[in-house]
């Protein structure tokens, strides 16, 4: 790595200031390229000095990303990035910390850390590249692979029921949950920006195409031609509308979503109006269960609520202790309890 001169201040930065000299090592056509591009584009807008940005990843194709970000970076071990990020943030709340993970890294070996970092609400932006496959190890099924999927390790079809990453996040008390798509550049950068600006753990699932081992995994609804009919954009305060002319909408029948044609008959007021800031996670949970082909795939910010940030609470206890007992003094500490003197 060549050393880099200090930037003149965040505002002066541009995308190129976040590009390293490392040759990008993903397969040609991999969705990771697009996610990298949006991530690099996003950096200058965050207004965070480059030296205060850190990317921490586990292991997987996705986890190479830090090498391509001209910030501080840590390509750690499989599934453990959230733990490293937690220790770093707890000690230095000045830093803007991103965690890059995958469906295997984050939901298979790393599932437990994901659960706990989210319930603690450590201020991290977690981006999970979901390509429904183990890419780096050349194509075994993952916890998000479809039931029955045939792969190197499941020649007769996988018999594991997949996890819904967003459901897992919601039940882990996540304060920010969103979904986007590798090739939907504007939506992706917008979603990443929302996530990056959220105080607390933000979790973004990005549908990412692995064109070598799981090509077209999301094409059925992600393909530009059908996307507007098979996905639904979530906008806070707006009704759930989709279709080329937004001619279709979604309403709730009790806890069951239903698709209705808007315009003729069905009146707008019946529609489910998205409220990302609602404390009660029931609706977020229902959104996390909606999938093509039964429903359009929800895209965007599903949940964004305010909760105290873990490291602030930790710092608060330290401050309060100092407040109460004064800065720790070693001599006083050493003499705690019974002491005696030998002349």
């Amino acid at each position: 790595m060549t050393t880099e001169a200090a930037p003149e201040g965040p505002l002066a930065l541009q995308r190129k200031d976040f590009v390293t000299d490392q040759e990008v090592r993903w397969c040609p056509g991999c969705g990771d390229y697009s996610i990298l591009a949006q991530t690099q584009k996003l950096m200058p807008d965050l207004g965070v000095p480059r030296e205060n940005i850190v990317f921490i990843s586990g292991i997987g194709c996705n986890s190479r990303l830090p090498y391509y970000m001209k910030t501080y970076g840590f390509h750690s071990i499989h599934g453990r990035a959230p733990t490293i990020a937690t220790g770093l943030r707890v000690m230095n709340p000045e830093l803007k910390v991103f965690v890059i993970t995958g469906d295997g890294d984050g939901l298979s070996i790393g599932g437990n850390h994901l659960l706990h970092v989210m319930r603690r609400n450590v201020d991290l932006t977690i981006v999970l590249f979901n390509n429904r496959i183990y890419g780096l190890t050349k194509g075994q099924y993952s916890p998000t692979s479809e039931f029955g999927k045939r792969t190197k390790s499941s020649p007769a079809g996988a018999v594991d029921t997949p996890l819904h990453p967003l459901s897992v996040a919601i039940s882990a008390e996540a304060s920010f949950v969103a979904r986007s798509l590798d090739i939907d550049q504007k939506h992706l950068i917008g979603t990443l920006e929302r996530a990056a600006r959220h105080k607390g753990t933000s979790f973004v699932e990005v549908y990412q195409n692995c064109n070598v081992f799981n090509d077209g995994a999301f094409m059925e609804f992600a393909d530009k031609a059908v996307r507007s009919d098979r996905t639904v954009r979530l906008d806070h305060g707006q009704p759930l509308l989709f279709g080329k002319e937004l001619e279709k909408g979604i309403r709730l029948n009790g806890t069951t979503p239903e698709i209705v044609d808007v315009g003729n008959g069905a009146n707008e007021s019946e529609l489910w109006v998205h409220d990302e800031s609602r404390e009660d996670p029931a609706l977020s949970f229902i959104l996390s269960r909606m999938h093509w082909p039964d429903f359009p795939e929800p895209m965007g910010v599903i949940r964004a609520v305010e909760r105290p940030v873990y490291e602030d609470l930790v710092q608060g206890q330290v401050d309060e202790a100092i407040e109460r007992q004064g800065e720790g003094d070693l001599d006083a500490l050493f003499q705690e309890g019974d002491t005696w003197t030998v002349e």
Partner: protein
Amino acid sequence: MSERDGRKPGKRQAVEVQELDRVTIRFAGDSGDGMQLAGLQFTNTSAVYGNDVATVPDFPAEIRAPAGSIPGVSSFQVSFSSHDIHTPGDQPDVLVAMNPAALKAHLGDLPKGGLLIVNTDEFTESNLRKALYTENPLEGDSLDGYRVVEVPVGTMNTRALSESGLNTMQIDRSKNSFALGLMFWLYERPLDSTIRWFEEKFARNPEVRDANIATMKAGYNFGDTAELFPQRFHVAKADLPPGRYRNITGNSATALGFLAASKLANLPLFYGSYPITPASDILHELSRFKNFGVKTFQAEDEIAAIGSAIGASFGGFLGLTGTSGPGLALKSEALGLAVMVELPLVVAMIQRSGPSTGMPTKTDQADLLQVLFGRNGESPVAVVAPATPSECFHYAIEAFRLALRHMTPTVFLSDGYLGTGSEPWRVPEADELPRIEVKFARDPEGFNPYDRDPETLARPWAAPGTPGLEHRIGGLEKAHITGDVSYDGDNHDRMTRFRAEKVARIANDVPDVEVIGDESGDLLVLGWGSTYGANLSAVQRVQAEGLAVSCAQLRYLNPFPSNLGEVISNFEQVLIPELNLGQLAMLVRSRYVVDAASLNKVTGRPFLIAEIEEKIHELVGSKVKV
């Protein structure tokens, strides 16, 4: 005033006082009987009085056993002396048995002729049954040969507190204070420090405070009045090096050492840990001292614990994680990452009996090889190992000093016996302690993350937040200097040797191992960790017999002190006593191609002095009877 009416100077002359130079008392009772408290108070009092002291507690297994059962027995042994001592004693001179189970469990350790004080009130049908006694030992002849003193502790205690206003259960809880008072009388100890302790501890609960004080005094007076004891005993002050002292357990000393390291390096401390016996104390202790800026993190598991500590180290702070054997096994992979990224992580490793869950409340020294080799690839870490409870303070600081100067993960290797045992600690002056110098990379000019210090081979520490030093690290092999990912074979070979050499060079930065006794002779007793007290005591005894035996205790296990080879070469034979099947022995034999002998014991208990003494005689013959 407590002092006076405690001492009852008027009646003192009534019984003759015998001078002893060392006494070892074991308090044993049910988990609920407060034996740890009684033992600790007796220890503090003796220490404050001026004796040298050493203690060892023995808890029941982590699960609470039913009251009155043998697995439910809890004991605390304290040895106090007029000269300096190194172990809590092989065997007790006095056993205080608060119930039948305690008697059953511990009588075996009391030598014939030993003083046995039993709480007769608990010797009921049902308690005897719980202790698996078919007949009442107080009646049979099974106690012949012991100096048995029967005391109805319960009755006396209840009588003393009839007016206290406490309910029977609360009253019963202060039995131990009565027994303690009695022992204070027997060994002529002042009551005041314990009274002070009760006053603080139960400040918000005056009845309990007064009850404990009252019954303790009652116990003291009971000794005075009841003619149970023909004599009292006195153990004179020891002449310890002058200074301010306090009694401390190894785990407390460890926590204090880490807090001190943080001050001395002027860097905040992060402790990521997952509870596990016997390391949990360190988490509990550190979380009490938030005003030192320490942040403790109870992680979801050991992997998250070390991961978070690595994150703290990466961030430019004192990253610390702590655990015991099973936890270290889980940390293996992440510790390997720390080796690859060359960060100054410290791991506090408090050994317990294995393998697997083993005997969580007992001690072995069987994790040395795991610490050295329990990772994939060539993955060297530095290892320091305190030899006594109070030394834990110094080596906790030392662990960070080495980690920071040499940019290497460093393991602080202690064990349950050190961690829970206690001894007097000469309290240092904070500003006596040498500062730990930390160099952060700051200058972007020519910065490279794997550009090593020519002397130590340490790589620069560039903390996130430093402008212009943005760089990426990770677990893949790194290119020399640049730190880029590299699959180049020769680079891998070079980096592998750099990592090894970097740790090896720490030998230039640590003191020589010290030989106690002549620099050469027939036998060197070489040890590490908590065997120190037993090794030293045994060697002192055989030296007194005139044998040409010396001993040396290693505090640095990786790398070895540079003079170790030469030290060994000056002796005919080497004996390595270990609480394992010969782990240090394997390292020494292979490193120095010397046929070192082993003394191995894996009972979850420390060596007895006698066991080592006997092995020494076996190896070098003896001029005296054993």
